[in-house]
């Protein structure tokens, strides 16, 4: 399997004009190396990327999903990535489907099968393709005049759409389905699977729309059969690698995690890329959390006036005992800063899911970044530390949402779940989520009966030696149940105090509590390579590029590397062990400022810190394996 791959892609590392990591461009520069130059007749099976360039608002998402799902249903591992603008309609959008027999689902730098539907970008897109790539395009664009080293497949979309879609206003949406037929025929996709995918996409209630779109698929296929000659090496062939799997986006997975965590209060303020998380959860809550007998909700959702209010409501609800959460992205996190510090000092649980994206204001709000690692770990003024979980897959979005609630309530503290746009808004293959076997952990809460037995309690006293005090909830029917919740200045009994001893005691207990968490947060994923000199360490969605990079290093350079993926901060002891096992550890960050690297440096001993090397990727696109490999090769002088 690897041999064929190498012959096709071995040019990758020699490519001229490939920008360095720190200045990586969104649109890769064309190189002169050929995709399948060495042997144009060699079949490249289940190992390439399809990219579709459209304008947003044209319904292309449906066409792309159907194509991706059809290939998935053929048992072939796929991943889909949508590169979209911050816009409702009319701006360029690229959707990439990676087909990988080996199950690599990270982004690849290049796509060799291109569908050009957007006149605005068609020329540039065409110029950027590598020689030997296949190009399906809208005939009037006349892209075949631009180069002579591509396989061109012109398709007269407007002519084809008329007969299948008499209603003119629907043509814009149906038109895209024609390329599904064309591409399906060219790649040898099983059309029974296309039809199944289409029916699934539209659902039983939209059977008429499904039929209309199916006719467009057929029109595309028939056109291709009659008018196109297959001249590229790319094919799909049925496999058995996706049996039992699901396709789901991370935001939906996070929402389901919250649903099964028993969330009772959701507050949110709309922000890309986290809105679909809240909307998905709202839809599931409406479906599965209405009391059958009374028709009343066992949850409350409030769309807040801003993120300050969203976190304030979470804190109020959690203080009163609810399982409360909000979801947001970087700009919202910035606004929550003061309140999160307040929750830290007052020891009120809060679950904050941060679907990370690029920078403030306009710019790249629809691009991915691991932008809030440091911010969330230390959010607020004064001394503060917060647990941060780093899911890398839909399965972990589901499980970590539940763990976040349990951790927040047990440790009485805000807990962040850092996903990102890549994970949250793209579709991923995943195993079906397992039903939670453990009971929901509500933490240390005293009832009226407990208070009768104990006579009273001191809210911030470390009774059990884990740094976590006992709390009571408003509504506990007991004269000594209450306490007064206030910022940093309080003693063990929650009384107002500005005494230095009280402050120090409290701060030391909070620090100790944080240390205890190391043993309770999700453990690292450790893939050792015995005897390897170097290690690769990352978190979140860097996982896919990192593990593929590891294989590339072994395959192309004979260099083995250990692999550790941290799933949470505070870092478990396994991080130190991993650093000890290697001479150098490459820490991968999808941000310019080496946030994971910096957080590790703050946490590790000086001796261990000295072994860390930083690799940063920050184009707004998900990191790809080749970029990592190139960088490690450079730094290691391989």
């Amino acid at each position, binding site marked *: 399997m690897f041999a064929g791959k190498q012959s096709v892609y071995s040019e990758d590392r020699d490519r001229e004009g490939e920008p360095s990591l720190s200045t990586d461009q969104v649109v890769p520069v064309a190189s002169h190396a050929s995709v399948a130059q060495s042997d144009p007749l060699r079949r490249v099976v289940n190992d390439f990327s399809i990219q579709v360039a459209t304008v947003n608002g044209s319904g292309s998402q449906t066409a792309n999903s159907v194509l991706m799902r059809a290939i998935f249903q053929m048992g072939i591992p796929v991943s889909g990535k949508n590169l979209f603008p911050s816009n409702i309609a009319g701006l360029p959008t690229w959707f990439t489907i990676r087909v990988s027999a080996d199950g690599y689902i990270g982004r690849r730098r290049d796509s060799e099968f291109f569908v050009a539907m957007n006149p605005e970008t068609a020329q540039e897109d065409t110029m950027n393709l590598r020689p030997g790539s296949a190009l399906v395009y809208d005939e009037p664009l006349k892209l075949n005049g631009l180069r002579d080293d591509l396989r061109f497949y012109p398709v007269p979309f407007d002519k084809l759409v008329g007969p299948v879609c008499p209603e003119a206003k629907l043509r814009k949406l149906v038109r895209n389905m024609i390329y599904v037929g064309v591409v399906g025929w060219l790649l040898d996709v099983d059309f029974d699977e296309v039809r199944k995918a289409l029916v699934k996409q539209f659902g039983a209630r939209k059977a008429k729309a499904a039929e209309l779109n199916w006719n467009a698929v057929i029109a595309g296929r028939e056109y291709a059969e009659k008018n196109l000659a297959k001249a590229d090496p790319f094919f799909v062939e049925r496999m058995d690698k996706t049996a039992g799997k699901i396709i789901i986006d991370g935001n939906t997975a996070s929402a389901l995690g919250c649903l099964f965590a*028993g969330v*009772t209060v959701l507050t949110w303020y709309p922000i890309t890329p986290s809105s679909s998380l809240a909307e998905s959860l709202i839809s599931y809550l409406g479906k599965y959390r209405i009391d059958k007998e009374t028709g*009343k909700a066992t*949850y409350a959702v409030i769309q807040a*006036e801003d993120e300050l209010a969203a976190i304030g409501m979470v804190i*109020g*609800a959690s203080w009163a005992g609810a399982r409360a959460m909000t979801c947001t992205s970087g700009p919202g996190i910035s606004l929550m800063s003061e309140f999160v510090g307040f929750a830290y000092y007052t020891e009120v649980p809060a679950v904050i899911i941060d679907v990370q994206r690029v920078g403030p204001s306009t710019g790249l709000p629809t691009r991915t970044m691991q932008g809030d690692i440091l911010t969330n770990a230390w959010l607020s003024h004064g001394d503060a530390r917060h647990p941060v979980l780093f899911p890398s897959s839909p399965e972990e979005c589901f499980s970590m949402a539940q763990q976040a609630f349990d951790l927040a309530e047990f440790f009485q503290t805000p807990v962040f779940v850092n996903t990102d746009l890549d994970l949250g808004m793209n579709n991923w293959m995943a195993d079906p989520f397992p039903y939670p076997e453990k009971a929901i952990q509500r933490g240390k809460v005293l009832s009226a009966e407990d208070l009768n037995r104990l006579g009273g309690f001191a809210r911030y006293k470390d009774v059990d030696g884990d740094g976590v005090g006992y709390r009571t*909830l408003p509504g506990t029917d007991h004269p000594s149940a209450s306490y007064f*919740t206030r910022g940093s200045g309080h003693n063990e009994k929650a009384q107002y105090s500005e005494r230095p001893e009280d402050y120090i005691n409290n701060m030391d207990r909070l620090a100790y509590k944080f240390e205890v968490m190391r043993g309770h947060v999700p453990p690292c994923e450790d893939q050792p390579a015995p005897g390897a000199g170097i290690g690769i360490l990352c978190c979140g969605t860097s996982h896919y590029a990192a593990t593929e990079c590891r294989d590339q290093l072994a395959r192309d350079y004979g260099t083995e590397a250990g692999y550790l993926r941290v799933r949470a901060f505070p870092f478990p002891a396994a991080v130190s062990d991993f650093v000890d096992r290697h001479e150098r550890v490459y820490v991968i960050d999808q941000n310019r400022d080496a946030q994971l690297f910096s957080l590790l440096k703050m946490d590790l001993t000086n001796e261990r810190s000295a072994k860390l090397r930083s690799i940063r990727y920050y184009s707004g696109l998900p990191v790809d394996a080749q970029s990592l490999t190139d960088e490690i090769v450079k730094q290691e002088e391989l």
Partner: protein
Amino acid sequence: MSTAAPPPAKKVNLLDLEILSYRGSRSTLCAGCGHNAITERITEAFWEMGVSPWGVMKFSGIGCSAKTPAYFMSASFGLNAVHGRAPTVATGAIVANSAMPAIIVTGDGDTASIGLGHFMHMLRRNVPLIYVIENNGVYGLTKGQFSATADYGSKLKTGVINDTQPVDCCLAGIEMGATFVARSFSGDKRQLSSILKAAIAHRGLAVIDVISPCVTFNDHEGSTRSYQYMKDHDEPVHEVDFIPHFVDIDIEFDEGTTHEVEMHDGSRIHLKKLDRDYDPTDALGAIQAIHESKTKQEVLTGILYLDQDSPTLVDKLKVVPEPLATLPEHRVRPSREVLDQIMDEYR
């Protein structure tokens, strides 16, 4: 044996509790601060209404006013939040446990400046709670800067004249959806007491803007929030009497001069006509009256607006009657079959 007279019977409320059970810690505010009088009235109101002293949630933001929840009802749950954000925390807490009465005590800095957005949205939502604004027109804790409720043309101790328009929290309340809007004066014991008790009986958001002079920074000549200014300019729209639902007596009143309002819990408010006809259920009339009073340099006080029909946030959320906070696992975690069904949809 002496034959000394037996001690006088202790005064207790409906729950057989003395007012002592409703007191808090000693105030650390300045002697003569209007806020202390308001604290007294709040204490009495909850005691007189027979609300369980550990069955209330108290909230505040930051400022002199924010300290006061510690000075009443020590047995209650209190939360001193960050500046201007008490409405958000209270909203969350009420949603989690809608059976608990809640009160926010804030100041004009909290409400009209840093937290104006939250104030407005709390109004829009008609969050069922009592919202007391201790309005003195200045920032006390930071030593006497103008707040956003300071009247145009009023003067600071330093001689600085306010040249910006004030935020009128009552007008905002009526416009944006509060269902009980009142203004009072910390020095008017009787009026404030009746208004607070009526607010406790109200189902919905009760906004009470209480002019509460700051004796240290805003009680001088040229201030429009001084004791003297209020003595001269306080203009009650009616005399307010409150008769709690558990007081089973017929109080005679003249229907020609007194308007009786029956509340949801059976309590009654008697609004005795003074020198005008004032209808607190007429929002437009109330807004007009407040605007007119300003041109005459009057401070209208009383129950300015009352709407007993609009649904509260909790009504609109259609939540189960039990507190969401303590629902057991089987009511909040869907079954294994539900997860299987959802997973099938993604296959």
